[in-house]
């Protein structure tokens, strides 16, 4: 295929495995590549990924995998990643390049777009191809989710976007799919030695990775005091969910900042969001209102959270949550 490709930037974890968000990008990219009639590629930078790991990208939709390996690429350092991907783009000239709207993608892509002298649209929730022009239409929320904007990069290439995690289903794994893994050596001149990565630290024992969670159980001021968050922790455990929180809960020191959902915290997009004792300040809603299912439990019938809920209970959470927990346990036992 001579036509210019659609690229996705894969992410890897500390164990040198492909992160699932990379498969979401392939699901997005597959649709675009199909409409344009071009190949879909995944770019992977790492140190020691196995071939089995790389093949997963093909099973999940990639036609080609550009596998760039070097000891210095075991960890994400924006300067190295930006230099190397820019070099590859100059060589292969893809027309579209998408990355995840994660702490990595939202760092790498703006850095790269400046060097490439092209446009970038942040945190898209949908991507389409404009029929007449074949250009990428990038749809994203702005102003705290109050408006949606459709954006394009009409004259420059590549067209670049970061895509909100969990905004699309991954494609089913298909082991019969074929594709090429293209190993690429790193020219030492592309490595930037200024920044030293000194290591990783886990935040706490509880699940805090809100961006990859399917279910988030989120605590609001209605919990009344720090000790009561155990109710939320228990419920989260029952659902195997991550724990979120409103700004107020974080500001009062009931839980640490990485749990905060909303305008000054994280934007999340889980399949299910349970808002417990959260009234739904606009700043909070901005961070979670694209969740597929929103469930709210709050004592105030006027609470704004109910306006965006698919299911709500007006009542005392201290009665509702223990009963819910009990009934769920009974059902689990009897099944």
């Amino acid at each position, binding site marked *: 295929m001579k036509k210019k490709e659609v690229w996705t930037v894969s992410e890897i974890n500390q164990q040198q495995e492909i992160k699932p968000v990379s498969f979401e990008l392939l699901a997005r990219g597959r649709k675009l590549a199909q409409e344009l009639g071009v190949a879909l590629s995944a770019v992977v930078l790492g140190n020691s990924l196995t071939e089995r790991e790389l093949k997963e990208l093909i099973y999940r939709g990639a036609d080609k995998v550009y596998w760039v390996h070097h000891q210095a690429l075991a960890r994400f350092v924006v*300067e190295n990643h930006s230099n190397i991907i820019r070099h590859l783009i100059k060589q292969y000239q893809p027309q579209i390049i998408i990355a995840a709207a994660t*702490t990595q993608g939202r*760092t790498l892509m703006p850095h790269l777009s400046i060097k490439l002298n092209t446009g970038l649209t*942040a945190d898209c929730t949908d991507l389409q191809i404009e029929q007449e022009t074949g250009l990428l239409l990038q749809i994203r929320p702005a102003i705290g989710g109050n408006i*949606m904007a459709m954006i394009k990069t009409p004259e420059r290439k590549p067209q670049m976007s970061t895509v909100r995690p969990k905004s699309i289903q991954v494609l089913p794994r298909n082991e019969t799919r074929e594709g090429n893994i293209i190993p690429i050596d790193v020219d030492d001149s592309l490595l930037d030695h200024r920044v030293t990565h000194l290591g990783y630290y886990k935040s706490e024992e509880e699940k805090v990775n809100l961006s990859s969670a399917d279910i988030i159980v989120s605590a609001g001021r209605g919990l009344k005091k720090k000790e009561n968050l155990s109710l939320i922790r228990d419920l989260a455990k029952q659902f195997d969910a991550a724990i979120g929180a409103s700004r107020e809960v974080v500001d009062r020191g009931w839980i640490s900042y990485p749990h905060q959902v909303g305008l*000054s915290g994280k934007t999340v997009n889980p399949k299910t969001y349970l808002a417990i004792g959260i009234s739904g300040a606009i700043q909070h809603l901005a961070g979670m209102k694209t969740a597929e299912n929103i469930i709210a439990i709050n004592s105030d019938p006027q609470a704004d959270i109910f306006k965006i809920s698919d299911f709500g209970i007006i009542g005392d959470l201290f009665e509702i949550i223990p009963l819910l927990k009990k009934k769920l346990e009974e059902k689990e036992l009897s099944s």
Partner: protein
Amino acid sequence: MKIIVPIKQVPETSRVKINEETGTIIRDGVENIINPLDLYAIESAIQLRENHSGSITVISMGPPKAETALREAIAMGADQAILITGREFAGSDTWSTAYALSALIENIKPYDLIITGERATDGDTGQVGPAIASFLNLPLSTYTGKIETVNKDHIIVKRLIEEGYERLQLPLPALLTVVKEIAYPRLPTLRGKQKARTIDIPIHSGKDMKVKEEKLGLAGSPTRVVRIYRPQVTRKGTIFQVKDEKTLAESVDQLISFLKEKKIVSF
């Protein structure tokens, strides 16, 4: 230590109203404030100056009224401020915004550190900070939650990532984008407010900086907004009200049915 803090004036998001017919934002009567996330950048700059001496310059690009935001930063404790303003900058996307801010920063060299908020609450892109680092070829740490060590030639920071944290050592000068965790913003002081009232804030236009006119504003922006529309916000959800023991049990049973129907639980 010379620190530059680029800030943005934004409409107070909680008050934003949308014209339902045109899908555009009604800015009349909406209060303009310093981007709330920039307050963390200003505060961490002030703390660094308190510990290592030096000076803080806040800069902004925007309409003439953005001067108010710069004066508010002075009231908090910044030493000086510069405003980039002019018709030539209108319609800038993140690329050309970062281009103009970088040109100004080049003009006011030398500096040790640039600190920005993680993103602005209106555009919500988080792209301008990393883009400035790219234009100026500065080492970059985004989502910075803590500054651990600062000495003459390097800085060690904790960067918030999905799985926890990572620590980076960056040589100076460097650029940090910071998150809320880094500091608790102080209120303006009386002395700061007095200074803010009287300080002269220089204004730069395109002509005053070494910039290429064709890279500014809408003309210099690689991206175009095709259209803006109002998202579907309200959902027609089922809401139950607990009044007594019976309705409590019913509500919880209904919730469990909902969870089953949506395949959130499997039994």
